């Protein structure tokens, strides 16, 4: 168990290191000098040189890389090339917003997908199961932003129940925060739920065919309770895997949703920074997303150890 843990942490650190090099290298080959881009086309060469020095762009790449990494690790990623504002607080703010969005979306997806997927599996031959299954296929085929636009059209513009867009931090106005969170989280969550539902269904179908479930019924458990007590934990492994993979999708899917709902999250920051060639910010955002994905994969590995005793080692 300890060995496994150490091994996983080592892999996580190695992955983080390699991906940071990749991100840095990718940005380094971007055409255009960030300082010149920042200063505009009419800037004099001396002004550009001065800015390069200010940003440390005149140093060797390795030194630049190291100071960038140091900035990330110490939560002091420096200042934007464009706005000259410190990036750290901005990243923290934006990340918080996106995490709310993604987190709620994920919760909605799970709340829908876990029971529905299970139901679809249990009733996979009955009409209700087939209808649900077909619905989930349709759900998978709808782009999340289209779902968002539809929600806005119906519930905000049409019925006037909810604000069409915007974002208010929860500590500022909790009610408005919730109202504004509902639709973006739903559009992320529903489409995501359709995807996850299919995996849940497959996983539960697999489990339903397992011998130990028959054993459980032979013990005198009713089918539903047998599934709940013995099936779900086993079905959880593939489902958790999918949830982890989907989290990456969700994180990036929020880019589009943030645009639709005018939410100042990480995705909007990324798009703005790309448009303005605020490369250091692009680099930081991309790295944060990559880090989040790698970290979640690591956590999922840990969850496996909790779920499945066979992976803990020490057995035959």
């Amino acid at each position, binding site marked *: 168990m300890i060995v496994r843990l150490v091994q996983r942490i080592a892999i996580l650190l190695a992955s983080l290191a390699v991906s940071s090099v990749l991100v840095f290298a990718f940005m380094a080959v971007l055409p255009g000098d960030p300082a010149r881009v920042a200063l505009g086309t009419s800037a004099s060469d001396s002004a550009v040189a001065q800015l390069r020095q200010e940003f440390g762009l005149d140093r060797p790449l390795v030194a630049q890389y190291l100071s960038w990494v140091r900035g990330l690790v110490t939560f002091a990623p420096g200042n934007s090339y464009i706005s000259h504002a410190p990036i750290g607080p901005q990243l923290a703010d934006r990340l918080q917003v996106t995490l709310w969005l993604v987190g709620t979306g994920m919760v909605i997806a799970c709340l829908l997908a876990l029971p529905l997927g299970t139901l679809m599996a249990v009733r996979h031959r009955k009409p209700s199961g087939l209808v649900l299954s077909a619905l989930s296929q349709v759900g998978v085929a709808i782009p999340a932003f289209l779902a968002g636009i539809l929600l806005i059209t119906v519930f905000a513009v049409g019925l006037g129940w909810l604000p069409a867009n915007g974002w208010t931090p929860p500590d500022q106005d909790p009610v408005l925060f919730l109202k504004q969170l509902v639709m973006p989280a739903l559009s992320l969550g529903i489409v995501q739920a359709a995807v996850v539902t299919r995996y849940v269904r497959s996983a539960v179908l697999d489990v339903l065919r397992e011998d*130990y479930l028959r054993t459980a019924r032979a013990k005198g458990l*009713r089918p539903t309770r047998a599934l709940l007590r013995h099936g779900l934990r086993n079905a959880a492994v593939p489902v958790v895997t999918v949830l982890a993979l989907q989290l990456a999708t969700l994180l990036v899917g929020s880019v589009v949703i943030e645009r639709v709902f005018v939410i100042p999250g990480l995705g909007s920051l990324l798009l703005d920074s790309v448009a303005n060639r605020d490369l250091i910010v692009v680099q930081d955002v991309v790295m944060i997303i990559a880090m989040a994905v790698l970290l979640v994969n690591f956590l999922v590995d840990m969850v496996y150890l909790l779920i499945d005793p066979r992976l803990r080692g020490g057995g035959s």
Partner: protein
Amino acid sequence: MTPAPGTAPAAATQDDVLAVRNLDVTVGGRTLVEDVGFTIRAGERVGLIGESGSGKSLTALSVMGLLPEGLRASGSVRLAGVDHDLVGADEARMSRVRGKEIAMVFQEPMTALNPTMRVGRQIAEVLLIHRTRPDRASARAAAVELLAQVGLPDPGAAAQAYPHQFSGGQRQRVVLAIALANDPALLVCDEPTTALDVTVQARVLDLIVRGVQDRRSAMLFITHDLAVVATACERVMVMYGGRLVESGPVREVFTRPRHRYTQGLIGASDLTVVDDRGRLATIRGSVPPAGRFPAGCVFRNRCDHATEVCATRPEWIPTGPDSGYACFHPVPGSAAPGATTPTNQEAGRG
């Protein structure tokens, strides 16, 4: 045993633990088990033999009410002390019977246990479901006791282990412990030793027999291994093509089979090699796929003695209170069986 397919069912006596009447299992339009009927008395150990596809496992699962999805059973299965028919009973009623009145040991020990639950809990669970132990602690203690009974070394530690930490034989003992936990009136064993190493088969078989004997439980033991039946059972029923073709006391059936199929089966097992394929080869042809058996006598397309009359369905001919056969051209009653009985072979091995 009172086999009576196609005839008026014999009245179930007080002794009978299980009475199966006119049991059919169908899927789609096909009949997989047809008109099976038998009884098992209290404490009686009955073997059910036949080749793969003969319907013996389906018969057992019908008794448990655990037929795979899509398969339907009809007829009647009554269990002593249960005031309803097990065929067509809803899950709520069946779940009160399963694990308490009837328990089952499955063929595949590697997959029969939940890999994510400690085995102690899996055993204790069956006690708690049926409230045969008042609380968790006593159920857990009982589970350790059961593990000791099935011969696991260090049962206390074993209860804390996960299934993957056990070998196949050990896991089958755990499954047995679960099955015996509530002292069931009837234990159904579906080829419980087939998947095990030869070296541990006899030991597990012995544990099963001792387990049911200690509890005075009846047993329905399904296998294709005649030697195992000879060791573990008092009586035997032979199934072929979804029907019972012969039944009777083990010694009688094995030494003087009447049905031509039984005769072939025993002839094949006369070899000391216990090998499915080798044995099958001695009966002409092979088992048709489910539902594709000939009309009339299901065995006639493989039988050397078949005549035109075999195209009609053979009546059940009782030869005793618990025995009989269904064949138009039975082996003459005086015909000598194989030189050595399977019983002796097994005894020599065990």
